[in-house]
């Protein structure tokens, strides 16, 4: 037994891992499966020493093991290849490969020596045609990913964690990677493998552990379990969607008053870590009085789509049309100001970095988007009107704070989020885009926010909502558009949808062949 974990618990405000048991044999490839937030990454981060566990016992190579830092874990031969590239684009390939242990004499790097070694290292991942002296930034994303893997393979490893290693690789590159993994197995090295691609798991893994909401649902030999069953287990056997739906009054539903048409909207970019991100040919209609959920995995293009509708990033192709001019004009929103002037508001995903003005008071945060309509003369802010606005909004959303003058940085996550919602509710909008509105808020604030979303729809507003929690999505949405790998997998009535089906749709455009050819038919 290489690694044995018993009763692992970890909380970040809320429990993320609950009494989790996990085992890894020597020479085993053990796949981790689970939807967003199931706890896969947290587990790997704990094993590799990035986070520390709250409780639980660890045994590694038959010895008790308490991972307390990345360096300590690496000294014991535990290495992780992360999803985001941890490389230096301006340094050469060779320097990247040996960044930690650069051969040097009195601090002078021995370029020839490391380049010679690099040449060999690159061969192991099939990059023999790459010149180790060339800057890393000249390589493609997939090649960079392979360089990172090659760099890990140079170290004396006993346990390797691969977090979505194939997301940027082509078919032949994946084949080569798998050959390497098989080599590692022969040397008795244990591999923990995270991927969204079911076909890869069946191909390379010996066993699979399925996580749901921080709990281990099942550990099975891959040969003994079908792909469909894996999806079922990820979603949960008992479909909870039905009783949740009862709470929604759908009597107001679609009187077919479309407010927004999205037509073939496309935006494709390289993201910061080098991967392909964005979305392609997305079309849907958004009705007044409706909550339309956007489902899909993180990175499936959900946020990018919403940001393009709002004009935070500009779409490359396609258009949106608005009811206000009878859908005549083909529009691409040029800026958030543009969208806001057409009655579209958006609650952004990351409230700290994109939403909050942390040094400002609660009232200044609430009033910010309509400040120009709060000025009396000479551009002077009417502070009593501002105070009134903030107080009425905080009453409406039950924002808990000492006073409207309190710095917003002192509020809890839930109350900060409500204040940001208030910023948009202060505007006269007809369409509201919400990106993860209840992320990182406590249970009470979460249900308050969900109730508010339903209330807005009942008032005839159109709401588009992204949530990584399928339960929440099923609870508040009338319809759900599921995105998968940048494309629309389908739009479903929530009443006809279960968590399982939602998950299945989320995975439908992820497969290895899919990386080269985009001609895969939707399974739904």
């Amino acid at each position, binding site marked *: 037994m290489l690694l044995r974990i018993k009763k692992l618990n970890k909380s970040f405000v809320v429990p993320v891992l609950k009494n989790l048991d996990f085992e890894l044999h020597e020479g085993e490839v053990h796949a981790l499966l689970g939807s967003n937030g199931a706890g896969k990454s947290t587990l790997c981060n704990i094993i590799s020493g990035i986070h520390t566990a709250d409780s639980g016992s660890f045994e590694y190579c038959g010895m008790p093991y308490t991972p307390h830092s990345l360096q300590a874990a690496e000294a014991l031969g535990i290495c992780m290849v992360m999803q985001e590239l941890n490389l230096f684009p301006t340094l050469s390939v060779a320097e990247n490969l040996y960044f930690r242990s650069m051969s040097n004499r009195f601090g002078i790097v021995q370029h020839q020596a490391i380049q010679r070694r690099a040449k060999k290292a690159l061969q192991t991942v099939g990059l023999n045609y790459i010149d180790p002296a060339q800057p890393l930034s000249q390589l493609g994303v997939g090649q960079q990913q392979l360089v990172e893997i090659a760099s890990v393979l140079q170290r004396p490893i006993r346990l390797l964690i691969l977090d979505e290693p194939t997301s940027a690789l082509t078919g032949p590159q994946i084949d080569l990677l798998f050959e390497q993994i098989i080599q590692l197995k022969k040397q008795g090295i244990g591999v923990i493998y995270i991927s969204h691609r079911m076909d890869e798991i069946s191909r390379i893994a010996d066993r699979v552990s399925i996580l749901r909401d921080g709990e281990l649902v099942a550990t099975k030999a891959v040969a003994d379990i079908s792909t469909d069953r894996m999806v079922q287990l990820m979603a949960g056997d008992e479909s909870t969607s039905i009783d949740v739906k009862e709470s929604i009054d759908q009597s107001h539903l679609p009187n077919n008053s479309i407010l927004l048409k999205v037509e073939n909207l496309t935006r494709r970019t390289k993201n910061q870590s080098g991967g392909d991100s964005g979305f392609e040919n997305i079309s849907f209609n958004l009705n007044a009085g409706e909550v339309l959920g956007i489902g899909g995995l993180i990175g499936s293009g959900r946020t990018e789509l919403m940001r393009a509708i709002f004009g935070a990033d500009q779409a490359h192709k396609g258009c949106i049309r608005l009811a206000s001019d009878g859908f005549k004009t083909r529009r691409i929103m040029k*800026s*958030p100001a543009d969208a806001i002037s057409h009655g579209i508001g958006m609650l952004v995903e990351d409230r700290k970095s994109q*939403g909050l003005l942390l040094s400002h008071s609660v009232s200044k945060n609430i009033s910010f988007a309509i*400040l120009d309509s709060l000025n009396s003369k000479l551009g002077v*802010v009417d502070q009593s009107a501002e105070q009134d606005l903030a107080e009425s909004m905080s009453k409406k959303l039950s924002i808990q704070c000492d006073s409207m003058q309190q710095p917003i940085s002192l509020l809890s996550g839930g109350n900060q989020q409500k204040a940001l919602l208030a910023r948009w509710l202060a505007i006269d909008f007809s369409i509201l885009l919400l990106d993860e509105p209840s992320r990182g808020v406590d249970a009470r604030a979460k249900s308050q926010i969900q109730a508010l979303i339903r209330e807005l729809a009942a008032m005839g507003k159109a709401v588009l909502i992204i949530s990584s929690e399928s339960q929440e999505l099923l609870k508040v949405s009338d319809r759900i558009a599921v995105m998968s790998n940048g494309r629309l997998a389908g739009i479903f009535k929530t009443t006809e949808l279960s968590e399982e089906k939602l998950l299945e749709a989320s995975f439908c455009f992820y497969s290895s062949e899919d990386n080269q050819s985009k001609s895969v038919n939707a399974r739904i």
Partner: protein
Amino acid sequence: MPESKFKSRIQLPWNSLGLVAVLIVLIIFFGLMSEYFFSAVTFRTLVNQIPALTVIAVGMTFVLLIAGIDLSVGSVMALCAAVMGILIIDHQAPIAVALIGALLMGLVCGTANGFVSAKWRIPSFVVTLGMLEIARGGAYLVTNSETKYLGDSVGFIGSPIAGLGVSAALIAAILVVVIAQWVLSKTLFGRYMIAIGTNEEAVRLSGVNPLFWKVLVFALAGLLAGLGGVFQLGYLQSADPNSGIGLELAAIAAVVIGGTSLSGGRGSVVNSFLGVLIIAVMQTGLAQLGVSEPSKRIITGMVIIAAVLFDQFREPLGRFFQRK
């Protein structure tokens, strides 16, 4: 919530009070050390030194508030003074016209700084460093690298008004401080400046276009550098293309002593003015004590670092005071 309104009103600007305290301590110290400190000469020196640095520090406060920096103010000031001098001497322009010419020159330089850095996302440090050279070159070009003597025609700007004892320049500078503080704390523009310095992306995603406001801030800094040039011209009664070298650093020092954050989002115009006074009093006082120029510089440098250090611990100290 009437209580909260009350609270916010009595919240003492203890940071300003701290600066006032430092200023008083300095004045008492120099008063005790030098018998000449409380004299008309000292007063005149101070009154002449302050106005240009004050208005430039006001512009710099705004620039630092939006997390920018303007290194070109000293050169722009010299260029504007040169333009004004040349308009008066070589073109026999009325003083009012020449003054407007100087201000326009400053506005153009500032707008160029703001537009280039905000539009193409080039760090303002680099853009204004370029402008520092451009404007200095411009000043030499306009004056033919000679100091142009204007004589008494512009002396009224810098010399004390009879009966008041202070110059028109000082009155104008204080007026600028008051207006700028009002703009900062009361208006939309002020709110946007602080917000841009705090979180520009959040500002953009709230539907406010940061570009316009950023350009406006740099344009104002340029305009105020132009006004500083006018004051300088009045004080020297000549247009010196070498004037204002290193002034940008003095202005930044004053603003930083005033507690404005270099990373944006926090600052006060009045405190910057207090920073100017502290620097001016220190320089004058040290000079009167017979401290040599090198030592003067060393002491000034240490005071700047001490001010920033103090600023680092501002928040814990603030909490301590509030608890009392």
